[in-house]
């Protein structure tokens, strides 16, 4: 539930992991399955004498994202150094943006906790380099030693900063889902890769100071960390302990946040313009990038409703992932768009979810085939669900599964015969029905299903049994 006294703002770090190379050097970004410290070079290791060279592709991706988030693109943008010591930062400064970030003042629409559409304002979008990754032997506050992997070091990051417009952990989650959705539409980001999205969150209760919670690496983690923080801050308030401005670390394993430093210990990052890079005039790039911008989720959803005549709920569900949307359009073009929408949004997505599988596990061709069998009345709805489940669990193709499992819809005559037989055999149930116990019809329908070995359509069987009973 939205809680009136909770104020949340997010800083989301998005790895532009669809780029081929890092932000300031030529190292490959394809390090996720590699041994530690194998995707490094003198530049991303910050060896003495090395200089950064900006990856133009990263700037283009950043412009794409900033535009998609409705930001105003700055005509000239530049990099700064953010100075601080940490073992994951080999230069002891991070090249990032400060004044003149690439985008300012955007917005994202999400569904608020009250069910209404809600605008979350974006303060800024800026580019920066990713530090390395620390691997602690144990937990951060008790580790005996820590190892550093610089494979990630120098990856292009975008930081998306929101205004404090979120009112609950759930809204925070909706925001992140929507952001991820947009980023995947833009083809700049693969959210499935480890470390693709990392979140720092500012959270406070009205009238209290804020805590910054760092190191949240999943959407689920955000909900948990924020819920923990709200409870912690509330109970502190009840005990009369004032929240101080502080930075806290989210310990995912323990599901708690621990304080790292208070405002007094806050860093002075001594930002100053990076002398090894020159300011970039990007105003000229914007029209082209804008023209090449793909259709975004909200627009696609509206188009689906208009073009395919499907329900808004279905359109929303189908566009929540670009891959599902593409799957749907592929199927819709080859079968009834409405039927396809219902079966993909209501059935297939549920079955995938249940199995923690992605849309790639199912072929659009199979979906088209199943829908056409349904339309031709060759299989029942129940049978269609069975086909989908079987293909997901054991593979195969629709025709084969229907054949193997005997799912061909039984002829009406056979069902009628079964109904007559069942009514004859279940005299007690018939008597009960006649004396007003309507539920006893279920017993007779069950018998019909048994006699047809499940191939009869249950609704149809029900109708026929009722007809037969009414005739008696």
């Amino acid at each position, binding site marked *: 539930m939205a809680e009136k006294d909770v104020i949340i703002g997010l800083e989301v770090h998005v790895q532009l992991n669809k780029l081929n190379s890092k932000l300031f050097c030529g190292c490959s970004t394809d390090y996720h399955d590699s041994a530690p410290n194998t995707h490094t070079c003198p530049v991303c290791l910050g*060896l003495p004498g090395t200089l950064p060279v900006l990856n133009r592709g990263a700037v283009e991706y950043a412009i794409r994202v900033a535009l998609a988030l409705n930001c105003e693109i700055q005509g000239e943008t530049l990099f700064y150094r953010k100075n601080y010591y940490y073992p994951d930062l080999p230069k002891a400064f991070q090249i990032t943006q400060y004044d003149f970030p690439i985008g300012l003042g955007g917005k994202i629409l999400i569904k608020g906790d009250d069910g209404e559409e809600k605008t979350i304002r974006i303060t800024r979008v800026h580019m920066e380099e990713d530090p390395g990754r620390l691997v602690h032997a144990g937990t951060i506050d008790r580790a005996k030693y820590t190892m550093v992997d610089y494979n990630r070091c120098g990856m292009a990051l975008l930081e998306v900063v929101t205004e404090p417009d979120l009112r609950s952990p759930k809204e925070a989650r909706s925001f992140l889902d929507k952001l991820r959705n947009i980023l995947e539409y833009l083809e700049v980001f693969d959210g499935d890769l480890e470390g693709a999205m990392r979140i720092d969150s500012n959270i406070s209760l009205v009238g209290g100071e804020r805590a910054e919670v760092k190191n949240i690496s999943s959407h689920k983690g955000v909900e948990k960390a924020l819920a923990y923080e709200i409870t912690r801050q509330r109970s502190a308030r009840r005990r009369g302990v004032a929240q101080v401005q502080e930075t806290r670390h989210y310990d995912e394993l323990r599901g708690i946040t621990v304080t790292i430093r208070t405002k007094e210990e806050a860093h002075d990052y001594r930002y100053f313009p990076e*002398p090894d890079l020159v300011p970039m005039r990007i105003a000229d790039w914007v029209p082209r990038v804008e023209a090449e911008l793909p259709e975004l989720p909200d627009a696609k959803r509206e188009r689906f409703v208009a073009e395919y005549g499907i329900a808004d709920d279905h359109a929303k569900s189908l566009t929540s992932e670009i891959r599902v949307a593409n799957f749907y359009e592929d199927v819709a073009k080859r079968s009834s768009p409405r039927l396809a929408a219902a079966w993909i949004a209501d059935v297939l997505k549920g079955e995938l979810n249940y199995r923690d599988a992605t849309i790639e596990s199912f072929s659009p061709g199979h979906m088209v085939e199943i829908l056409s069998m349904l339309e031709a009345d060759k299989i029942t709805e129940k049978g269609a669900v069975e086909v989908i489940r079987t293909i997901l669990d054991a593979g195969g193709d629709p025709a084969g599964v229907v054949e193997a499992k005997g799912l061909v819809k039984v002829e009406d005559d056979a069902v009628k015969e079964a109904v007559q037989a069942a009514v004859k055999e279940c005299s007690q149930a018939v008597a009960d029905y006649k004396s007003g116990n309507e539920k006893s019809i279920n017993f007779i329908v069950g018998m019909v299903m048994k006699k047809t070995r499940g191939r009869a359509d249950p609704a149809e069987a029900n109708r026929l049994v009722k007809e037969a009973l009414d005739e008696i």
Partner: protein
Amino acid sequence: MLRELKEVLAAGASAEERVAALFEKIKRSKLNAYNNLSEDSALERAREFDRAPWSGLLAGVPIAIKSCISTRGIETNCSSRILKGYIPPYDAHVIERLKKEGAIVVGKTNMDEFAMGTSTESSYFGTTRNPWDLDRVPGGSSGGSAAAVAAGEAPCALGSDTGGSIRCPASFCGIVGLKPTYGLVSRYGLVSYANSLEQIGPLTLNVEDAALVMEVIAGHDQRDSTSVNSEGGYLSGLDGGVEGLVCGVPKEYFGEGVDPAVEKSVWDAISKLEELGASWKEVSLPHTKYALAAYYIIAMSEASSNLARFDGLRYGLRLGADQDWHTTFSEIRAAGFGPEVKRRILLGTYALSAGYYGRYYLKALKVRTLIKQDFERALATGGADVLVTPTMPFPAFKIGERIEDPLSLYMADVFTVPINLAGVPAISVPCGFADGLPIGLQIIGRHFDEVGVLRTAKAYEDATPYHETVPKEVV
């Protein structure tokens, strides 16, 4: 010099013998010009050259490299304890170019620690001595490179110049040193002290050699975003004289604080240029008095950030047992940096701090713009073609004389730092002696007019004997 050397080598003289003789001389030397030698690789390369001579602008020519320029496989310690033993896995852009043109790297020269100094006295490995007077400093920070070239321990060398670090030691050691226009030579591989100010440049025995080295090292490198294309012509544009040239003489560069002998030599040089067909006129660089303050704020601010990476974690100094990272970093940095480096890191950190950034760093950048405009105005079309000044206000001072008084050392840079702030090119050439100590003449040009600067220097050099005078052999 280099031309003769190349001719001799091309005629079949043994490069190995020459390189070996050089090492012999270096090892007997009292100058302490080198931190470390690359004897094996240099001799091996010389033998290869003798077996199958290659062509190239510097074919077979030995060269000394300042210790802050990265050389693959050769220790590059910036004369600091914190980088003692650090061997770069890559070559600086200039080193790649030198190798491509056939040069042979003989070793890494001493310098002020991380190029912070005017005397080479802040080196962790002890000061380098001036070949003209062993009790005096060679200047700095490229003191090792200058002393080596002046004493014949290398036919040419590379240095780096952030606020005068090539021109000052060239002046003190009586040789030629050129600081190129900012952006003309790639800084890739130069260990950064103050990125927005520094350039790599040649230290040589004469102007032609400096032009030759520039032909090799100048030009765009995609790994340095601040580097630009070179139009070349340094060698081919050398001759042509100074007929019709207008020399600007900035009034702020004479008078109080300048040794009278230096002033006299520079005026003699101006007269000599007049004799050769140039004219001179007084110009003003009105913001000169703010240059030192702006320079030190910018340089120290950038340095405080650049030097933060030296923590011993990945390379460099390591002390005994590790504790938590914070303590370990602190201890390594406390032990690894000398007092001048620490002073500059502290001052730079202070200048960039919240609340002071606007008052110091931003203000210094504004002053820098004004100083750049001073030079652009003085060197505008219709004004002067080059500016002529003393390089240093005085000749080499005694070792230990100023090291305890940082401010007086900083003051020595008064005529060299404005050039770095403006980004223009400047050369120092020998123009006389005071009590047996060399004096340097500074010729400053328009942005990217290295050709004009070199041509002026060459005409002057051709008409004067100072570059031919060499120190008594110091062994």
